């Protein structure tokens, strides 16, 4: 997950946009603008959630970070 925009912030923004749209108090031009923006966020969030690189486990050693795996 990228650090530049936090997932948490994206979800918050998304919630805000949806609530605004659902309130029905936004005019059509604005609501289409907001919808487009929200859909972009949905795609980005979706991408992050489905971006399954196997989980990175690292261990801090005297030689720096090393991969670490637990035996199940």
């Amino acid at each position, binding site marked *: *997950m990228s650090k530049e925009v936090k997932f948490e912030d994206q979800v918050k923004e998304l919630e805000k946009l949806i609530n605004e749209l659902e309130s029905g108090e936004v005019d059509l031009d604005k609501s289409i603008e907001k919808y487009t923006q929200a*859909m972009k966020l949905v795609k980005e969030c979706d991408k992050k959630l489905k971006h399954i690189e196997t989980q990175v486990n*690292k261990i801090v050693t005297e030689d720096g970070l090393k991969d670490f795996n637990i035996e199940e």
Partner: protein
Amino acid sequence: MNDKYLTVGAITRYLKSRFDSDTNLMNVYLKGEISNFKAHSSGHLYFSIKDEYSKINAIMFASNAKKLNFKPVEGSKVLVNGRISIYEATGNYQIYVNSMEEDGVGNLYIAFEKLKKQLASEGLFDEKHKKVIPKYPSKIGVVTASTGAAVKDIISTIKRRYPICETILFPSLVQGDGAADDIVKNIEMAQDYDLDVLIVGRGGGSIEDLWPFNEEVVARAIFASKIPVISAVGHEIDFTIADFVSDLRAPTPTGAAEMAVPNLSDLITLISNYKIRLNEAILKNINYQKLYLDSLKNSFVIKNPMIMYKSKKQFLDMMIDKLQSIMLNKVNNARYEFNMLANSHVLTDPSYLYKDYQNQLANIIDKLELLNPLGVLKRGYSLTYINDQVVKSISSVEVDDNIKIKLSDGVVSAQVTDKEKSNE
């Protein structure tokens, strides 16, 4: 008679023999807290052992005291083994301690309570210091032993729930000497790894095993951490100082991992629900706008554009009517006036204009006629002239004067014969 009275010594000896013949009192295991501790120069130790209800005197002879592996002090929690007997000289019963060891758990409990109280009074456990655990962490630090159940539980739980998150393990001693310092070192090191949350803990164990998490240094390191800390020490029932000072206490390491990360599938559902809600919201919005547009299109005015100017036209018509009637009135008035003029006598009979004058003239003439002295003559009057002068008085003539008398139809010449003055 005196025979029935016992001496103090005799009753004490009797009691002592009763104590000493009781096998229960020969080998007593006792736990309590040391008070009134005195180490005599002889090497014997004199003290009391007490709990919250009672107190018993104790003596430990130098031969046994030498074998102690700790230095008893006032307040120490101790476990002792010995026999209970009576010291004849004072008549007090006391325990003759053979062996004594520290009551580790008891001491730990005291230390725990003392530290807890102190840190609480410093405000280290206050809610206002609790940091919020981020909902969707991307990097999680774990301070625990690199082997054992705890690390496995934490990492496998994170992997199962939220595989998109990175974990960094800070392998640490978690029990025994040096564990507390090692935990502190790792918590401090973790601060530089850009972590969203830090799990600090270990699996279950005895209170001694968990003890490093009750150490003041660990508590202060957790308090100082800029990363939110979830403590996960032992089992559900184990409470440590680390639990009180951390931002969130997890009952177990697995619990800590569950608290640290959301469930990915829940999140995917959340996002897809957002997507559904978004589409519904925008469709609803568009439909609403469409309905609104339709209602506009169907509005009376748009459907009957004539109506828009009909009323204006009505007004205009009214104004035109009004204007016309005003103009008509004016024309009629003018015409009427014209007719009046046209029909006036002056125009229809211009003679009328001077008829008046004729009449007037006739009147004047009549009047003039009346004034004409000649006219008067007609009625029989006459004018008398002398030398062409009208005679108005007898004084104007003399007897024998020749006069002329003018009548209406001619002139008579005559001579004055007499004159006589009238008397009126």
